[in-house]
């Protein structure tokens, strides 16, 4: 049997009936040798290594170095590798740049595709029916719900990742951050700003 943690018996916790089903599936797959314990552990480690902090690092470096920004926008996987990340995935990884003229918003209406190989799991709201249905049709209203409104005259561009590309937003560097180092800058870059429902703020 697997040796990573399980929900303990008798907690009295209400949980989904699918909890027992996926446990059952795991147990059976291991017993039949369809999967091995090391393969399961590798898979866990894969997800644990990925989080929005990776995206924040990419953005912070690009804010500080023009060459890196250029790389991030032209070959994002190479940029990720340069910072020690493992972006391998059959899908392309493309970063789209916010400018004073353009603000980008990412959605996957068909299923919730997200650049998991870099950022890990998407937030719940990103996967919700309401976000998936409204982000394409009323992106500005959706962003308002996150407390963000682009300035007058800024074009909003929605990217629906319908196929083999995963998108991440490269937000603009907030003013007043001139003295900050890489770590301080990275802290400003929220997961929400990488999707485009918000922007980094001091």
């Amino acid at each position, binding site marked *: 049997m697997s040796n990573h943690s399980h*929900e303990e*018996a008798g907690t009295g916790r209400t949980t989904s009936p*699918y909890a027992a089903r996926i446990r059952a599936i795991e147990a059976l797959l291991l017993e039949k040798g369809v999967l091995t314990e090391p393969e399961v552990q590798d898979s866990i480690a*894969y*997800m644990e290594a990925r989080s929005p902090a990776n995206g924040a690092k990419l953005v912070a470096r690009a804010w500080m170095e023009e060459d890196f920004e250029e790389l991030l926008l032209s070959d994002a996987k190479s940029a990720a590798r340069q910072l020690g990340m493992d972006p391998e995935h059959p899908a392309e990884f493309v970063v789209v740049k916010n400018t004073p003229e353009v603000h980008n918003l990412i959605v996957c209406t068909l299923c919730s595709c997200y650049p998991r190989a870099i950022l890990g*799991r998407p937030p719940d709201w990103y996967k919700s029916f309401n976000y998936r249905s409204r982000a394409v049709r009323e992106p500005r209203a959706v962003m308002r*719900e996150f407390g963000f409104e682009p300035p007058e005259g800024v074009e909003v561009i929605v990217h629906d990742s319908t196929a083999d590309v995963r998108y991440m937003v490269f937000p603009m560097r907030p003013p007043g951050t001139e003295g900050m180092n890489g770590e301080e800058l990275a802290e400003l870059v929220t997961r929400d700003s990488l999707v485009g429902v918000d922007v980094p703020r001091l």
Partner: protein
Amino acid sequence: MGGSPGGPIDTGQHEVEDWERLADTISSALGAKGLQTTDEHRRAIESLEEYRDLSYYERWVAATEKLLVEKEILTRGEIDERAAEIGRRWGGP
């Protein structure tokens, strides 16, 4: 889905439960071995009758199950049996 009417966005984040992490893990491990591709998984999710009634990870588990049964790697019966046993161990009825 895109463009359909929708309500306010719930911006809250629930704590990812262990079983949900496991759903991710199993999908990913099966994917790494070519036993369940992203496209097969998406198709299986889309074909779920209960699509609208299930949560995100519930759909994932249901789709993984559907594919494993379709490919004759596991049977519905043995999953049912083991799930019931697990449910009993957790202090269920």
